[in-house]
């Protein structure tokens, strides 16, 4: 069983709610779920879709074939009719679309009439549609019914009841009228955890003891702020919407200096404004975690679409030389743990840590059995209270063997905590002399760098042992590459190499991935950008050049079939 449902329509029609709810029905049914969203930068109108894939096997990407299309507009039918699978069905409402379609796969469901008749309002049309999906698939109403109950509880019993009768009306209608609907469902099992990329980063921050999050809204990072803001009181984490991104990162640095774990999040344009602050973090050795959600640029680009075009920006931006960490999670679960590791390394080495992701990962829902809370790291590296008071002398930027200076909390003792964006001495006071400058560059940069480097995990390998073909990628392309490789593994000796800990570039000490690549006949780097930024990084850091590249830069993510087809084409040619 491996089905995909696409819900298409205008902004404002509730497509996201329908998609989110269906995804939850399937995850609670114990199926593996993957969703992705494609939407325009507008509040009403236009055309958007939400795709939900579910299966009894793990799924990590979207497929091109659609099994059920729920069309809330005629454009959905024009655009996606040809993507329908062999036994697929298009559910639509001929009276609201003012068009009837003929063809064996069209299924006319009076969403609006049923909503009015059973739910008392046209608003219930989406609930009717979800009920119809249950009916088409042959699922029961109970799980969806419980979800509607949870969602509308606060609006009163009447609203809940109206939703449940609308759901039933849609379900009964579909059972009776969907001729030839032949979906067969795998048995239900234990519910799974369903989470998006931004939720995972937000939860990861909270689970790392983050106490302060300052940001200025920018797609696709806003979901992190939304998630953390909903947890402010419960966890004692303060979310401040700053007047701009310059302020956001400087506020985070202020909070961090004062003794709490702090974070900010943005997209490329906002990160551009933060760059001086990034350098300030480097100079003052004030830890900060930055979530950088990529979208296609340059400038405003395609605000709601996806791209991996900001890798070089994240690696090299900011004036001066200082260590930084860049992580690029491939799944929400990785995003959760790498956010945690970003906090740990930022605090341990007193450096900035960047978690780079993109709209595709931000908005996609994935299912997991759990997030593995036991794997979380938490160490308080700060000198607080008694520990600080007990010191005879204290220098914020003391030169030490490993370059890591004692990190005192101001106000906790008579010791003064002083830092400066100017070059400074051990106490933190502004200096100009060459000798101190050299000491500080060595302390802050050269001594810490190898230690930070040693923290980086090697890439993940999946597939055939000693493969002829290696597909490489980083960040959110994990899912499509993995499934494409799996799909091709019957035809080829093929494997994948996925990098999620990007910078400092992982060494080959723990895993000789360069050896693996060198032995393969064909090595292809898959990237959601035009110039192959990761491939360039690989060449710069290791001297290894991939034999081929697959780049997509239309603002859309890779899908399994198109990527697999692309690989077939390349391997034939190469």
């Amino acid at each position, binding site marked *: 069983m491996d089905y995909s449902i696409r819900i298409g329509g205008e902004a404002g029609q509730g497509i996201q709610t329908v998609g989110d709810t269906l995804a939850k029905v399937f995850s*609670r049914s114990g199926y593996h779920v993957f969703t992705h969203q494609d939407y325009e930068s507008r509040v009403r109108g236009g055309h958007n879709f939400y795709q939900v894939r579910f299966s009894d096997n793990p799924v990590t990407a979207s497929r091109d074939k659609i099994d059920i299309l729920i069309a809330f507009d005629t454009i959905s039918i024009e655009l996606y009719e040809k993507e329908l699978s062999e036994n697929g069905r298009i559910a639509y409402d001929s009276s609201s679309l003012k068009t009837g379609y003929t063809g064996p796969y069209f299924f006319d469901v009076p969403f609006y009439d049923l909503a009015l008749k059973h739910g008392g309002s046209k608003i219930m049309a989406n609930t009717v549609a979800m009920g119809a999906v249950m009916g088409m698939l042959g699922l029961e109403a109970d799980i969806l019914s419980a979800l509607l109950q949870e969602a509308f509880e606060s609006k009163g019993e009447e609203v809940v009841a109206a939703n449940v009768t609308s759901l039933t009306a849609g379900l009964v209608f579909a059972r009776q009228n969907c001729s030839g609907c032949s979906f067969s469902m795998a048995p239900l099992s234990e*519910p799974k*955890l*369903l*989470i998006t990329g931004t939720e995972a980063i937000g*939860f990861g921050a*909270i*689970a790392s*003891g983050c*106490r*302060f999050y300052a940001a200025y809204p920018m797609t696709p990072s806003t979901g992190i702020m939304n998630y953390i803001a909903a*947890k*402010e*009181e*419960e*966890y*004692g*984490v*303060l979310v*401040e919407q*700053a*007047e701009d991104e*310059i*302020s*956001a990162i*400087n*506020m985070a*640095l*202020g*909070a*961090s*200096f*004062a*003794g*709490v774990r*702090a974070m900010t999040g943005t997209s490329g344009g906002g990160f551009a404004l933060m760059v*001086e*602050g990034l350098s*300030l973090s480097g100079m*003052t050795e004030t830890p900060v975690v930055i979530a950088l959600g990529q979208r296609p640029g340059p400038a405003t680009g395609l605000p709601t679409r996806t791209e991996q075009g900001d890798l070089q920006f994240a690696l090299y931006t900011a004036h001066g030389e200082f260590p930084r960490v860049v992580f690029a999670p491939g799944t929400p679960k990785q995003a959760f743990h790498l956010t945690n590791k970003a906090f740990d390394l930022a605090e341990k080495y007193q450096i900035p840590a960047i978690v780079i992701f993109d709209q595709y990962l931000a908005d996609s829902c994935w299912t997991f059995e759990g*997030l593995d*809370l036991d794997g*979380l790291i*938490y160490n*308080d590296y700060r000198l607080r209270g008694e520990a600080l008071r007990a010191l005879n002398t204290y220098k914020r930027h003391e030169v030490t063997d490993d370059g890591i200076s004692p990190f005192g909390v*101001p*106000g906790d*003792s*008579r*010791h*003064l*905590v*002083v*830092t*400066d*964006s*100017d070059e400074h001495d051990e106490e*933190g*006071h*502004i200096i100009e002399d060459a000798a101190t400058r050299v000491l500080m560059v060595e302390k802050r940069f050269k001594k810490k760098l190898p230690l930070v480097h040693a923290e980086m995990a090697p890439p993940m390998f999946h597939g055939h042992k000693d493969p002829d073909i290696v597909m490489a990628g980083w960040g959110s392309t994990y899912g499509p590459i993995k499934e494409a490789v799996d799909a091709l593994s019957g035809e080829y000796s093929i494997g994948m190499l996925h990098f999620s800990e990007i910078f400092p570039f992982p060494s080959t000490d723990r895993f000789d991935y360069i050896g693996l690549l060198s032995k393969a006949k064909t090595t292809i780097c898959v990237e959601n950008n035009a110039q192959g930024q990761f491939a360039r990084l690989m060449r710069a850091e290791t001297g290894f050049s991939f034999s081929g590249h697959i780049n997509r830069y239309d603002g859309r993510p890779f899908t399994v079939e198109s990527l697999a087809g692309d690989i077939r084409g390349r391997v034939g040619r190469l």
Partner: protein
Amino acid sequence: MAGLEDYKGQTPAWCPGCGNFGILKTFKDALVDLGIEPHQFTIVSGIGQAAKLPHYLRCNTFNGLHGRTLPVATGIRLANHGMPVIAVAGDGDCYGEGGNHFLHAMRRNINVKLFVHDNQIYALTKGQASPTTAEGTKTKNQPFGVFSEQLNPMALAVAMDCSFVARGFAGDGGQLKELIKAALGHRGFSLVDILQPCVTFNKINTYEWYKQRVYNIGPDHNPNDRMAAFGRALEWGDRIPTGVIYKNDRPIYEERNPVVRERPLVSMKFEKSRLEATEKEFF
């Protein structure tokens, strides 16, 4: 109790005769008067001659970027509102590069005390016009004279309903000390704009120039009267009012936000136990 010698910091790198010396001395006097010890508060500064002040005192210090004093100061307060936080900036730093932060700090009413050393010039970068340089003033970089109208920080602050608005003069330490103390004692975002002669680059707004014009607004002025405050704030030229121009008792951010109302973030311990329940919410 801290005495003046406890506040002796690095040797200032300011020009002889600079108005900043007077401000520094008065600052120390005020702190000693208030009985605040060096470790009990933090000064945030930006970049410029004024911004070097915390190095010449002894205190917790975050000497950040040009223009970004207020965001850092806000972050420190939000993390630890048990600690007084002072921001020290130049006119260029605060009204130019950091102008947006200035507006929003007033709106937020975060309990930060802002002292602007207003020498009506960019001193550190050697004499360009600042937002408070008088219209028509010629500099190396403005050879035809400044075209833009002079920014009026007092009127801007009153318009923004800033919680405490005062003007001092580096040449009148007695009054300035009282203004510093009043600002530190006030509950709410406080601005003290300090007229500060720059002996090297500002040959117009000299000690003499200011002395001929400044007057203490005295007890006749009611700083709680916003319209009256506007009137005073708009005065500039032959007569320049100094003293507390405006104040109100708007609630401060720190007491309005329930996350930190009871205790500051920095005193909260990391609690792992709730995470499992949060994980369940995703099922």
